[in-house]
């Protein structure tokens, strides 16, 4: 698991190494400074000459400057290394997510993916920084101090034989007890935040039903639950400090009592040993404390690391096969015994036993009620999802054999949920073809009946579109989205209920344009208006994930009850309109 994360260090490896080197240097200087000061004090005690004192002083100042330089550089390189690490990590995650199919995304949920890329990466970055700063330093200081304590303190160092295991065990036990508690409460905390978000988004419903008090109570109960859980977990961790203090105090008292007796009754040690013991004792306990903090930190961020690894190691459900076909021959489509469900766990098939053969250049209309799986059907064509059973062929070849980009570049789809991105109209249209010339863009817009209104804007094609496309009307947005799809010069064009906000006249103009200018392209039109599909070569009536009937308008009027019902309802009392 760690290996995958470590891989993200990449070009910042040198900064990691530099950090380690400078931190070790700093640690060495840091432990030397007390040595030399001890000497200096001894000199002063014995009444040394001024020049001796100054020499020691000068040496110490130089060392302090060196230590500062090392520490400063290490701080800088460490910041660079950890920020670089998280930058690469984000890149890896983002690129991974870009390869995801919808079933992958659904597995995590998109809000969870956002959290993983933000909060979790930040947590891991912090631990990473902590680790490279202290992972070498603390054990080094620990070993160094134990050795020095043994050398200088002699028999007194037996105190550590008692203290270190007690402390180590205590820290370990606390961590072990606290971690599951934290993990549980973090999950609850996430849920609490989700419920706040739900509340904020649905505020009109809350207020509309005057449910403010009810929501307050519900939230209060949830928050209180988290408070008590969090308090329990934090109180366990809060035992760290007193435990540490207890050990430190024990060490002090032990050294004082045993040390003073030994100093007075034997020659084995003297006052120097005692004060050295006290100093090093402090340093040993401090490094233990640091190690325990790292332990806590690492365990806390392990959860984040795990969540990131999950994203990174998720196999994209849809990938281009090896030696993929990159050329789509024509726009013919064949569904052969296709059944499909959105996830393996789903009980119901979204599509069942679909057999459909569409010749290149045909216009196919699809009509059906809410939840009849019209959109599911067409999403299988550009392989946004893979079939569960059977196969879908485009240009006579199973879509799973194509290179994904090649396939999707020859299938243009205008989605039900049309999205324009922040940017100019031209930039948005160029999503269809980055190299499109202005003339090509206008051509596509003329075909989708968008040119007129675009030109009526003061800035024409340079008009800025707000995020989500809020500054154009629904019908205009739909026409721009069609133009964007046309620019791809696709072999198959799919309109998923994408003229619903366009008036009937424009709608029929668009369809006439298709017929005249892109006769080779296979056109699939999902619509709620019979008028939008009635002149298609083939019309499918979808019902509960099956093709209830298919045929031309006239045939269906005779054979399909549903079709006739819809038709009569819409034509009854005049030409109905959306």
């Amino acid at each position, binding site marked *: 698991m760690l290996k995958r994360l470590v891989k993200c260090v990449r070009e910042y490896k040198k900064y990691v190494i530099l950090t380690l080197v400078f931190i070790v240097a700093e640690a060495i200087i840091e432990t030397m400074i007390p040595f030399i000061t001890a000497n200096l004090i001894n000199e002063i005690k014995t009444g040394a000459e001024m020049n001796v004192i100054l020499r020691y002083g000068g040496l110490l100042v130089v060392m302090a400057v060196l230590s500062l330089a090392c520490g400063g550089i290490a701080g800088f390189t460490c910041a660079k290394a950890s920020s670089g690490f998280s930058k690469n990590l984000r890149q890896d995650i983002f690129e991974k997510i870009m390869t995801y199919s919808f079933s992958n995304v659904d597995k995590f949920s998109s809000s969870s993916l956002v959290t993983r890329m933000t909060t979790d990466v930040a947590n891991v970055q912090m631990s990473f920084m902590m680790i490279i700063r202290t992972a070498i330093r603390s054990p080094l200081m620990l070993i160094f101090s134990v050795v020095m304590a043994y050398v200088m303190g002699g028999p007194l160092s037996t105190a550590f034989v008692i203290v270190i295991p007690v402390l180590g065990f205590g820290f370990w036990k606390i961590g072990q007890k606290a971690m599951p508690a934290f993990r549980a409460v973090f999950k609850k905390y996430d849920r609490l935040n989700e419920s706040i978000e739900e509340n904020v988004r649905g505020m009109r419903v809350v207020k509309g039903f005057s449910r403010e008090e009810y929501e307050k109570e519900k939230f209060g109960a949830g928050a209180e639950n988290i408070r008590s859980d969090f308090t329990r977990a934090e109180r366990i961790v809060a035992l760290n400090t007193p435990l540490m203090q207890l050990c430190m105090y024990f060490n002090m008292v032990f050294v004082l009592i045993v040390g003073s007796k030994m100093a007075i009754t034997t020659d084995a040690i003297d*006052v120097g040993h005692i004060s050295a013991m006290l100093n090093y004792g402090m340093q040993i306990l401090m490094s233990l404390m640091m190690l325990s903090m790292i332990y806590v930190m690492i365990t806390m961020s392990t959860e984040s690391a795990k969540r990131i690894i999950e994203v990174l190691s998720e196999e994209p459900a849809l990938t281009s096969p090896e030696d993929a076909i990159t050329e789509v021959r024509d726009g013919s489509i064949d569904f052969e015994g296709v059944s499909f469900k959105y996830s393996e766990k789903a009980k119901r098939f979204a599509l069942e036993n679909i057999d459909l053969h569409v010749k290149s250049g045909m216009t196919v209309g699809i009509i059906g009620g809410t939840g009849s799986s019209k959109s599911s059907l067409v999403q299988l064509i550009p392989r946004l999802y893979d079939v569960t059973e059977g196969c879908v062929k485009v240009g006579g070849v199973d879509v799973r054999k194509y290179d994904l980009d090649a396939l999707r570049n020859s299938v243009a789809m205008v989605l039900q949920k049309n999205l324009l991105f922040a940017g100019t109209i031209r930039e948005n249209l160029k999503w269809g073809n980055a190299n499109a010339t202005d003339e090509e863009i206008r051509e596509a817009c003329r075909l989708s009946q968008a040119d007129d209104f675009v030109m009526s804007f003061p800035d024409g094609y340079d008009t800025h579109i707000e995020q989500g496309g809020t500054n154009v009307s629904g019908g205009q947005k739909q026409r721009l989205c069609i133009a964007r799809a046309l620019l791809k010069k696709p072999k198959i064009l799919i309109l998923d209920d994408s003229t619903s906000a366009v008036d009937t006249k424009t709608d029929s103009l668009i369809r006439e344009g298709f017929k005249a200018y892109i006769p080779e392209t296979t056109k699939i039109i999902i619509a709620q208006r019979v008028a939008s599909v009635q002149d298609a070569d083939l019309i499918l009536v979808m019902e509960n994930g099956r093709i209830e009937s298919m045929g031309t308008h006239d045939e269906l009027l005779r054979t399909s009850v549903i079709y006739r019902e819809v038709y009569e309802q819409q034509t009854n009392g005049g030409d109905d309109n959306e």
Partner: protein
Amino acid sequence: MSKKKAPQATSKRPPMQKGMLKRLLKMLFGFYPVLVPLTIVCILFTAVASTIPATVLQQVTEMIENWQATGDWEGASAEILPRVFFLIGMYVLSLISITLETQLMAYITQGFLFKMRRTMFERMQDLPIQYFDTHKHGDIMCYYTNDVDNLRQLVAQSLPTLIRASVTVLSVFFIMLYYSVWLTCLLLLGVVAILFVTKKVGGGSAKYFVLLVNAVGKQEGFIQEMMNGQKVIKVFTHEEKCKEDFDKIRDELFDVSYRAHAFANMLGPIIMNIGNVMYVIVATVGGLLLIKNVPNLSLSGLPFGIDIVVPFLSMTKQFTGNINQVSQQINSIIMGMAGATRVFELMDQVAEPDDGYVTLVNARIAPDGSVTETAERTGQWAWKHPHSADGSVTYTPLRGDVRMTGVDFCYEEGKPVLHDVSVYAEPGQKVAFVGATGAGKTTITNLINRFYDIADGKIRYDGININKIRKSDLRRSLGIVLQETYLSTGTVMENIRYGNLDATDEECIRAAKLAGADDFITRLPGGYETELANNGANLSQGQRQLIAIARAAVADPPVMILDEATSSIDTRTEAIVQKGMDALMKGRTVFVIAHRLSTVRNSDVIMVLDHGRIIERGSHEKLIAERGQYYQLYTGAFELE
């Protein structure tokens, strides 16, 4: 959600305000008037106790040196052990106090956060809809996540450290003065240097940390947009372009991130080594003073000697160590204060005023029309209208008669949205609004339930000015179904019951049947007990709308507002639902907004709105006969949205 929004407030962070800390502390004390002072006492005690051992140690080592030559442990122990026992006593006390302190801190911190969250949430519930229309939801969420997290750091770590360190520094300072004024002055010079560096480096770090917060927000926004637009990205194979865009944002984030951390990381070594240099200078100067026999100036009046220089040196360490601890907290303090500023900003929002005094009560209406108030649910309701002039109370039966007269309204000063709109809806009538996006259809319904207040004109409900009606009661008497449905996490049954918390399962199911939702709900894997998550992501938009309609049905209000409620249901399903809808609308006053004209055709009155004015009104037949705008819309000659 209103489709017509006032411009979004920019998400710029407010400047730090003075007095934040004071206000924060006041709240903290207010929440825990006993525990907080107790914790502070513990912190103080621990801090003072930590300075004492140094002096005891000094004394003991002296004693050992004195007795070492004699080798007489009996005599020495008589002198040494009492000191050690004193020390043990101090240690025990300080252990108790530190345990108490850390446990209390854990308790207080979480309790404080809980109370903050609850206060924020309760305030938020009372804010007018306008607040939610003018603030980005992500920004509001930020209060509960980032800002509260920052506060946590401040309260749990920075404040105790500040208290502890300043007490330690102060007590050490006095002990120093006790030993030597000269050396203390020398040390103060060092403190000035440290403060200077902290201000420079710490300031730099703080600046970049604030930038970092913004960069993180920008990144999050970008990822959010990409996740929403996934399908478009895939369909247009635009993955590479997205990666490029993301790279730019990532680089920017990297840049501020490393600067912020670099400054923060460097501060520690710098201060620590200034401390080291101070140590050296004190040692050297101390030694020199000793050699030169400079007379000492101190509170104790002790002469200058080695027994002054040595303890002074260890205090120097303690002194700079503590200052270093404070400087390490600078980022947390700045971020915490920024968090506090924002949280208070939410808390200081003015709650939706509600000065209505007419309330909705259960009533029994006698055949002669007289109304008596009852305590139990009768299924009949009346407006209770107290008159302050003569102290009398009148009851008006709830009928659902809504009249708007000459209403003007604007979301923003100078940009009127409605002009002189008059609408009369008698009980049981169906009134439809038709018009282009932005014509003001939704706005009218926003005014009826007082999500917004009108600028001019009158709205009366059963003859009572709606400004006099308590908002919660007004809204209880109005059911709304919106185009964007919001379902909460929970079962289908719970979601329907949201409309009327007292409804039994049977009543909920009956409402679902009425709305035509029962059919698909019973086919869900768990039926009515199916858990919905993520705003019912596992349901289709049409199914969500059906549940929302059932939710409104169970509330059984006399007036209903259907704002594009059936827009996502296909015409055929709508025809099926229509029967339920008709049953639902029967006997109620209904306001319908729909762009699908088949939905509004059978309304009693259809209002055609254009740019905030009603340009045509009448029944379907009348409007068709008039051959006006409605006719054009109806025949499809005109684009609606």
